[in-house]
């Protein structure tokens, strides 16, 4: 009897070694440790044993059961672990495989520049005005101190609809329109982004349609130093904290005194390079103190009311900021260019 039990134990342990899935293990457990399994059968057959043999065999059976159960548990947890590992491996994804990426839309570079500049001036307390593209000769020229046959009209080649109606050559007509609409209210603080038209042949630096941003401030006692203050803060905000500005005398019929504003070359920082023609400065905008005639025509007659105005080309600034070298690219809309503007850009 004892030999038979010992042989069964050896057999059971040998059987267990090649069981490596949970179903075979369960079958093994039923076969050896189940209610109708071999150990139970052996226990039941103890009735035929003598009184002396019974405890001895009983103890042996219990010992064998303990060994088999322990070995089984060890084996079972190994198999479960292995299965779990396999499951885990099966569920592993190649995290480097591209995801389902939504298409990204890009804001047009000119719009990007406009929005940035708008935000800067909104922060200064300016509001945004927009005006008509088709303008009257009066608002495009006369109300800006450019009477008919004024030689300065030659500065701007104009597309006409008829002798009194034209495509605006600058955003400045909105200076005159805003003054007339708001007078005598003060202060006036506006910017005017918008498309303008010049009778120019298109090439790398000229476009018959382009984009300007006008600025106008009118209030009691506005001075040229205020103009400098606003423009310096603007330049620092747009081109960097260390920017400097320089004003040079210039001429616009609707400002007096007038100036061109330069900033430190953003490529060489002022050391001189081909972009800045080795001057260290880059021209950004035209500005000046609102001409008294413009204020008077706009309905502001009171002495002591002064103002400043400025105007800049959005294409020029976008070209400087993003290194675009041909103005026509803004209107060609090559997706290979626009795609580059899906990212955040200053």
């Amino acid at each position, binding site marked *: 009897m004892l030999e038979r039990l010992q042989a069964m134990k050896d057999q059971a342990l040998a059987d267990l070694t090649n069981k490596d899935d949970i179903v075979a293990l369960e079958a093994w457990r039923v076969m050896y440790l189940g209610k109708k399994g071999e150990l139970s059968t052996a226990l039941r057959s103890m009735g035929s044993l003598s009184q002396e043999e019974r405890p001895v065999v009983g103890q042996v059976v219990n010992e064998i059961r303990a060994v088999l159960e322990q070995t089984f548990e060890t084996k079972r947890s190994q198999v479960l672990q292995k299965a779990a590992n396999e499951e885990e491996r099966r569920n592993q994804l190649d995290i480097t495989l591209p995801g389902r990426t939504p*298409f990204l839309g*890009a804001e*047009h570079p000119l719009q990007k520049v406009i929005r940035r500049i708008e935000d800067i001036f909104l922060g200064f*307390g300016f509001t945004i005005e927009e005006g008509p593209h088709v303008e009257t000769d009066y608002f495009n020229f006369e109300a800006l101190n450019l009477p008919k046959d004024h030689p300065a009209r030659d*500065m701007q080649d104009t*597309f006409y609809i008829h002798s009194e109606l034209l495509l605006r050559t600058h955003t400045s007509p909105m200076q005159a329109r805003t003054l007339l609409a708001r007078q005598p209210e003060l202060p006036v603080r506006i910017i005017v982004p918008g498309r303008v038209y010049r009778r120019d042949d298109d090439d790398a630096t000229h476009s018959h349609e382009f984009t300007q941003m006008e600025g106008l401030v009118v209030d009691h006692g506005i001075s040229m130093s205020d103009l400098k203050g606003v423009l310096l803060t603007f330049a620092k905000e747009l081109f960097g904290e260390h920017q400097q500005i320089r004003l040079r005398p210039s001429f616009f019929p609707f400002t007096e005194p*007038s100036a061109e504003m330069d900033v430190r070359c953003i490529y060489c920082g002022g050391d001189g390079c081909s972009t800045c023609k080795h001057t260290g400065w880059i021209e950004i905008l035209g500005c000046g103190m609102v001409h008294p005639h413009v204020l008077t025509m706009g309905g502001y007659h009171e002495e002591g009311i002064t103002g400043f105005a400025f105007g800049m080309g959005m294409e020029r600034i976008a070209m400087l900021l993003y290194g675009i070298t041909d103005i026509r690219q803004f209107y060609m809309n090559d997706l290979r260019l*626009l795609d580059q503007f899906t990212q955040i850009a200053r």
Partner: protein
Amino acid sequence: MKITWNWLGEYVDLAGLTPEKVATDLTNAGIPVEWMQPLSGQVKDVVIGKVLTVEAHPNADRLRVCKVDVAKGDPLTIVCGAKNVAPDQNVPVAIDGAILPGGKIKRSKLRGVESQGMICSAGELGLDARLLPKEQTQGIFVLPQDAPVGESIVSYLSLDDMVMELELTPNRSDCLSLRGVAYEVAALYGRSIHMPDAVVKESSLAEKLPLSVEIATEHCSLYTAQVVSNLKLSASPLWMQMRLLAVGTRPINNLVDITNYVMYEWGQPLHAFDYDAISEHKIVVRQAHTTETVMTLDGEVREVSSSAILIADPQKALGLAGVMGGRNSEVTEYTRAVVIESAVFDPVSTRQVARQLALRSEASLRFEKGIDEDITLQALARAAQLMETFAQGNIASNSIAKSTKIVEQRQVKQIAVFVKHIQSLLGYAISQSEMLEVCKRLGFTVRVVSDEEFHVFVPSRRQDITIEADMAEEFARLVGYDRIPVSVMRGQLTAGVLKPAQHLKRTLRNFLLDRGLHEVWTYSLTAPKVLANVLIDEGHPATKMGMLLNPLSEDRVGLRTIVLPSLLEVAAYNSNRGQKNIRIFEFATIFLPNQIPMLDQPVEAPHITGLLSGQVESVGPHGETRLFDFYDVSGIVHALLTTSGIAQDQISLVRSKEPYYQTGQCAEIYSKNVLIGSFGKIKTTVTECYDLQESFYFDLDFFMMQKLIKSDLTVRELPKTPGAERDLALVVDRDLPVQQVVDAVKNSAGHELENVSVFDVYTGDKVGADKKSVALHLVFRADDRTLTDQEILAKVETVLNVVKDEFGAYLRF
């Protein structure tokens, strides 16, 4: 406007200054020096030589062997290829080791004969050959007989000079002369001006020739003239030719060159008439008669309008005042005497005539900008004197001056300047004494009224200065704009906020960018011919286009009335570059004239437009993607309207009849009978022309949208009772728009119907060929209680009866 450094130095002391410094300072003072370069490239060791002999080259037909005396050692042997070389000529000779703009000259053998240098052409000396007379550019540069043999060509021709190009602003026409620039330099450095004093003494008159002048137009304020006789027409002195050349004017002969020279010197254009061509020795300045013609110097017969000012005699026109002289009074080699004209013509008339006839010249340019009447007589005297000196002429009349202005009108402009005004305009505490110092440097006289006020008397050369603010600029630019401090603008606080429409535009732009559409910008100017590309025929409202009077190219002749062609062009451009997925939008303005032709400002309507073509998602390793279809563009448009605060129940869709849309796959969006936009599939006949795949377009009228927007939002309370959901599959006719079924359900299910949505549409064998099954999801809810099954069943019953009556709909099982 070009000037040269040495020429400028004749009128203002430049001692201790360099061209570089003056260029920088002029630029900073508002007279920008665009560029500066030496008159000629580097020239060294080129001397004046006299050709002694010219012999044939033993080995070459085209070459000659010359002996040239350079007043230093033995005559040189020089091999020369020019045809015009001849004995006794004075010529520029580059001796061994000489440097020319084109390189270094060394002695060398030419076909077996050693050449000890080179005889130079004008071009080889770096002179602008385009402006030189032909005889001086074909072959070697033949110098005058009195040229000193042995002298350096650089000093003889004044080649060591700097040319500066001034980029003048339109107001500074005073600097269209050496005199004006000299005044500016004098003001910068506090120096004085010395213009040549040319008063012709009456006693020098040898022979008197009669001349009278009559001004018969208000467009000539001053006319002065003088007769010079016994002239010898020849080349002008070389120094004068060189200066004219340097500033870009072709030397012609001594008389013409002198008028040009004085124009550059004083800014006063002059003209010389042949004295004998003037009938009755009388000059009449008058307006042209209608349909009068003048043959101008260039031989063209020009018909002028009555706005033109003519110089005439009692019988005929002699020239177009301020624009071009006439052929009949041209100075020729037979001219015995000339009348020099120095006058002031009306800027506007001159400008109009010069523009009409496309005859803009250095003279007309100056008349257009206004002439300083104070120097008109001086310029006349200067020209007469130069003709005496360089054309052996005799002054044959006193200077005659006629003016139409009364004396008071010619009074010096007087501007009252208040110290406080200037200080507060500039934001800079410039003192009265600093201002007076600037006036002194400018040569403006002043009268001090008090510590607070002074009067400035502006000389007539500075026509740009008329008001106090102009003086503020003079003060600022001459003390330096960099002296103006930086200050913070004061005053009432204003909120810098976007207006509602601007806010909405930004929101919608972001919406479209987030949907993966790229923003594009296209031109407003277009041509009617592109309308045919999108099948728009005559009669369509888009053909009512505002046209330009003076277009520049045939592709840009009018203002667009529709955005679609622009977007198709962008798509085609990109498709041609291999892009198959095109998702673009534009916030564009279209121009709708109130009448044709356009007389007043049109309606400028901002439109939100877009074009979708290609795949919905990027192609990846995760299975197939699909192409855009009608419902993608429909979905974008509906979401865009929702974002704008336009509720779905405010809008209705109607099939569009626009010619560019595919029939059956396009819609117009209406709200309260107002059209606010459209969307749909572009006809394949159109897209194929643009080499595009199936493309879907949307076009929303932003003005119309704005009118519908409701931006105030008050939230609905969240429900406290459970809702009851029911699904119904209704079989209806295939052509029945689903929206009608949905509307019928909404209208019949009672107010406790919270929502109804379409979740499936089935067509196929199971419902029959002309039918479709529409699966609806209904949600019922009462605010105060849970609805019972019986209640819901009753509502569904009602719904089913209504759709049965209206559409013959029945439940699908």
